């Protein structure tokens, strides 16, 4: 019961933060709220037993992203214009997508059901056999690095691609950047 209460409270905070984000117009505030959002998400991950994910989400969502966002804002602009576009079509798209999603959830097993198909097939194998086969206490690590090690190789490649990409896109100095800078000061 206590867990449910914690979940629900975290959820309402998450939803409130997301809704607050929709109407914020100062980029700095948006970034800070996004940081808080991922902090809340990470707390939710802890309550859902995904400690590794919480660890990563905290490091990435609240740490790296925040620094990146700040760096971007420092290089671009501080605010965003209030939206003037009609919002009916986007709203409709969102509602339809959400409706399909909810329609899809209707046949799902209950939250936390230990007999759900997702828990009994492959996952059960990992939990029972990894002690014998890999002998590492953290099952997440053994799946990540060994059973699905190739996915992780792909993940590292994605990160590498992002690094290469960022270098390609913004590591070269813009031609007049320095000069203009001196004029400014």
């Amino acid at each position, binding site marked *: 019961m206590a867990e449910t209460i914690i979940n629900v409270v975290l959820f309402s905070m998450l939803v409130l933060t997301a809704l607050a984000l929709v109407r914020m117009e100062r980029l700095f505030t948006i970034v800070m709220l996004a940081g808080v959002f991922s902090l809340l998400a990470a707390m939710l991950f802890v309550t859902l037993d995904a400690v590794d994910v919480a660890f990563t989400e905290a490091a990435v969502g609240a740490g790296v992203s925040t620094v990146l966002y700040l760096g971007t804002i420092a290089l671009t602009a501080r605010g965003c214009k209030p939206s003037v576009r009609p919002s009916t079509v986007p709203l409709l798209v969102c509602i339809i997508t959400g409706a399909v999603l909810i329609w*899809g959830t209707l*046949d799902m097993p209950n939250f936390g059901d230990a007999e759900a*198909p997702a*828990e009994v097939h*492959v996952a059960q194998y990992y939990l029972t056999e990894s002690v014998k086969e890999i002998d590492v206490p953290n099952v997440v690590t053994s799946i990540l690095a060994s059973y*699905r090690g190739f*996915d992780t190789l792909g993940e590292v*490649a994605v990160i590498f691609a992002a690094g290469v990409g960022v270098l*390609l896109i913004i590591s070269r100095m813009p031609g007049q950047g320095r000069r203009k800078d001196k004029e400014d000061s």
Partner: protein
Amino acid sequence: MAGGTEAVAHQALEMTDHLPVLQVLIPFIAAPLAVFLGVRSLAWPIACAGAIASLVCSVVLMLATLDGSFISYHLGGWAPPYGIEYRVDAANAFVLLLISATAVVVMPFTKASVDAEIPKKDHTLFYACFMLCITGLLGVVVTGDAFNVFVFLEISSLSAYVLVSQGSHRDRRALTVAYDYLLMGTIGATFFVIGIGFLYMATGTLNMADIADRIAGQGDNRTIQAAFAFILVGMGLKVAIYPLHLWLPGAYNYAPSAVTVLLAATATKAAIYVVLRFTFSVFQPEFTFDTNVLYWIIIPFALLAMFAASLIAVFQTNFKRMLAYSSIAQIGYMLLGIGFFNLSGLTATMVHLFNHSITKAALFMAVGALVLRSGSTFYDRIRGMGKSMPLTSAVVVIGGLSLIGIPGTAGFVSKWMLVQAAFELGWWWMALLIVASSLLAVIYVWRVLEVLYLGDTAEGAQHKEAPMMMAGPMWVAALACIWFGFDTSLTLEASRVAANGLLSGNAGMAPVPTTAAGGGH
């Protein structure tokens, strides 16, 4: 089971057993190697070597799977569904061959065009990205694991965003189209992930064959149907199915020439392959839900793409953008083949995948050469270049004819198959529609040819023929267009085997592999 106790008596694997993974691994390693060495002059040779090795692997794989068998490779030695499985049957081998062959053919062209369009300092990183893009596409095609598809899809997509943005050295609009591409691509990928999550929830596994097995026993399950919808829409964004195509014209138009060639010839094809794989091997519509749903969803969109995109292409004044819209239209034909849902239709899709790929490769390479010499692809800038650049313009002619589907070119074969499939279903009006949309293609191709050959040369233009590094690959692709127009044995045979495998549903993804390369499992 895998690992554990039986590993003591492990049966050593030969190098040939590793082919499925080497196929992806060699270009994969080329990327970090180029960055690690950091020598600019070595980047291109490394990339080239990776592409060629990959092509060799795919040729061997193709030959091994032509008899309808398939090869299963257990990464990490873990038997599926516990580990990730690489599974090559005729369908993937065909697309693998297509991708790696395109990569090899465009490599010399890439060298020439990159030298002209990208600052020297960035070459190493550029080739690394290029190789990562190819790796991602190969990985998407070869894998038999649903989540692994997502990971490799993102490798190729992320590098594709970067590659497109490199067009900003010529036109700043490359940045905004790259951003739009990133946004839509990520939304598509996230939809795909949602779909896989739903599938996992309903089946408890991520291995495609295993999912197919478990879906077949479930009957009518809303979770699975929603999963199908999300995977289809997510992939539709990557394929650029007509109403979801918005990123494509800009991305093709403003990307560096070499990147456009790569994306047009391979990226959407790999995405279509994923759609095929999921629709037929994983979901198996005849088991999961009414196949009529497919007819009513896919065919209208296909027709919309064929006509709307062709019509837009007719009115373009920019060669590259015209080709982009024509690509969207041609994607419509492939979808139509899927929508027919019979052997001929699927064969037509597979053949068209290949034929359109080489056609577009030839055309976009020609465009690259025109850009190199004239600086722009607007019709009034390339006017009359048929005289000053006869080799390049001849390629445009061949490619254009193949695009229309004139007999004797590759494009004819696939359209003929498509018409045949329509007749098999008794839909003669559909055949008429296919012919009608080909007439639109006649118009837009004619406009280009008119400009190239009949127009006066723009004043003061001193154009030379394209350099050999460009003309060579271009002609290879153009001759392939003609070759596969006459000799259809390889393409049709491979496509038919592939389509058969796909249509046989569960049989194509049977849990027991015929040629296991997984050691003693």
